[in-house]
């Protein structure tokens, strides 16, 4: 779209050199095919704008599934010096900790067999989804504060799950936040939404492990061919959206905004307001962790009716929209920086202390959901990613079609019957909504995964094929 000079470094890597107000260059991981799509919208301009913020270090990273967002592009990763850097809600996203959890079961597709439709329907009835469908939990204000402080750990403490669940969650399902920094307005949006899936691109999917690419690592993650898995994709709902809006407003009152894009409004990491935002963001992230923990519990309860001896474990739970303090090598010195990932997955290799012990020798599981009806992938994080992408890789297929066009041209009924022909059942709150989530509206996930694997920023472990999907 805009005329931005991007240079090809190798088959899967591109670079935008520093120019104008940019403080650092931009590195893009993409194939020729993906770069052509990335160039169709304002992704590269937004990545260049990210490179202008104070205290940004080394370079901006753009993941293979990148597309235009607001402020920062989706698939954009940036790192900031703790003394001179800033934190920007627009570089994290409104749906704070929009994230993915993968569950493994001791079932095979044969066990589910003909009851698949019935099971899907039962899950659809048990787990609230869609716009305006509220939580089954009756939280008091104090409960909500506890959720915001303790995340998935609070949910487990209340009897909805096991310690092992949050052990296999980034940040142990709990980031350091103080609920006093979350507005009443945000809390009132969240109090009725805990344990709800939401709508849009959020989903719960029953899958089968179709192919193992790396059996040694798949074994460590507890995955084997033919096994049934369940993937949950959701975020912090209205609470997280309100936290982002609240702090955008507070930051622009105090610091105005960068002329390139009002959405990149920010505050110094060291400032009172910057600290408060990070604390409120952590609370919203905890809400999202708690959300998936509750949904996990209901999945377990529900499936028990069908399979008495069912065993469901959390493989891992990864954040897609988040800021975290992490140690990285900058100019060959190890340094703590603030990493902001917007529509990107952490992809740490072996021996990082952030990874649960049972995975520490191999690296963390990276969960990349496909689009509705296409396969999802499990990758493993790499030391190479830590070197070249701040330990980050893609988070999904990445959109390509315009949503308004998708809405017109892809008919919901066709989407549904196409999926059913391929053996994928679907339950959705809004069948008009599913047209926009049709695979045609996204980039090719296989291409995204291929680039991640070839660039060595996330290596292939397993392919998961959907057999039943529930959408909000």
């Amino acid at each position, binding site marked *: 779209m805009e005329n931005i000079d991007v240079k090809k470094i190798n088959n899967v890597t591109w670079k935008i050199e520093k120019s104008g107000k940019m403080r650092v260059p931009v590195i893009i991981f993409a194939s020729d095919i993906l770069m052509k799509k990335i160039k169709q919208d304002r992704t590269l301009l937004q990545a260049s704008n990210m490179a202008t913020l104070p205290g940004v270090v080394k370079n901006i990273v753009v993941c293979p599934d990148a597309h*235009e967002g607001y402020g920062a592009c989706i698939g954009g990763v940036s790192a900031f010096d703790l003394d001179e850097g800033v934190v920007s809600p627009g570089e994290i996203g409104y749906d704070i900790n929009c994230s993915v959890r993968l569950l493994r079961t001791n079932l095979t597709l044969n066990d589910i067999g003909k009851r698949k439709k019935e099971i899907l329907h039962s899950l659809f009835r048990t787990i609230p989804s869609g716009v305006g469908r509220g939580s089954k939990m009756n939280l008091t204000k104090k409960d909500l504060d506890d959720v915001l402080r303790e995340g998935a750990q609070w949910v487990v403490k209340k009897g909805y799950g096991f310690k092992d669940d949050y052990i296999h969650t980034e940040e142990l399902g709990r980031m350091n936040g103080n609920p006093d920094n979350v507005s009443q307005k945000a809390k009132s949006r969240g109090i009725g939404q805990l344990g709800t899936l*939401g709508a849009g691109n959020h989903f719960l999917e029953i899958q089968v492990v179709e192919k193992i690419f790396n059996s040694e690592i798949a074994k460590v993650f507890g995955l084997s061919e033919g096994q049934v898995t369940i993937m949950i994709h959701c975020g912090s709902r209205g609470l997280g959206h309100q936290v982002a809006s609240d702090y955008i407003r507070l930051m622009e009152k105090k610091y105005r905004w960068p002329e390139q894009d009002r959405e990149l409004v920010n505050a110094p990491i060291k400032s009172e307001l910057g600290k408060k935002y990070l604390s409120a963001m952590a609370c919203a992230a905890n809400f999202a962790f708690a959300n998936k923990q509750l949904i996990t519990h209901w999945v377990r309860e529900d499936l028990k009716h069908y399979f008495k001896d069912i065993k469901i474990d959390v493989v891992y739970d990864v954040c897609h929209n988040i800021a975290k303090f992490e140690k990285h090598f900058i100019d060959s010195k190890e340094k703590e920086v603030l990493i902001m990932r917007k529509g990107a997955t952490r992809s740490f290799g072996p021996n990082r202390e952030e990874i649960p012990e049972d995975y520490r020798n191999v690296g963390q599981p990276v969960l990349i959901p496909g689009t509705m009806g296409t396969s999802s992938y499990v990758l493993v994080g790499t030391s190479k990613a830590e070197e070249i992408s701040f330990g980050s890789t893609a988070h999904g297929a990445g959109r390509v079609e315009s949503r308004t*066009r998708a809405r017109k041209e892809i008919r919901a009924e066709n989407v549904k019957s196409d999926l059913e022909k391929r053996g994928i059942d679907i339950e959705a709150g809004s069948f008009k909504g599913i047209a926009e989530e049709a695979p045609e509206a996204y980039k090719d996930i296989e291409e995204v995964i291929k680039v991640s694997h070839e660039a060595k920023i996330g290596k292939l472990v397993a392919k998961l094929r959907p057999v039943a999907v529930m959408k909000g």
Partner: protein
Amino acid sequence: MKFKFLPHTADIKFQAFGNSLEEVFENAAYALANIISRDKIKPKEKKIIKVRARDSESLLYDFLEEFLYLIDVGGFILSEIKNLKITSSSSVKNNKTLYNSELIAEVLGDSIENYNIEKDVKAITYNDMFIKKEKEKFICQVVVDV
């Protein structure tokens, strides 16, 4: 034409039109309501919306965000806006001129449970947002995160 939708890769972009600032705000709210549901919503319940901001863009942002808040908190969805008024004033503090805009509107609507809902709008954004006057007509553009 009250509003129209424009192409966007990931989110939904619209423009709204009006003969006054008030009308363009109203039509932006109707565009937002149209994204959420295309059903004819009944004007059963009344709410008052009051927002204050330093400039017209943030006033529009906060005004539209109120509708997302009303959905999340009370399951309220918009049918009709009445008596929308915007007043602006300026004051001087520490040698700086501060602009203040205030918007008050009566909004009528119904419980979300009674309708087909198409989209969950996550948030209003400043991305590509503008409000301008062209040949005596007002026009605004908004991208919402879905």
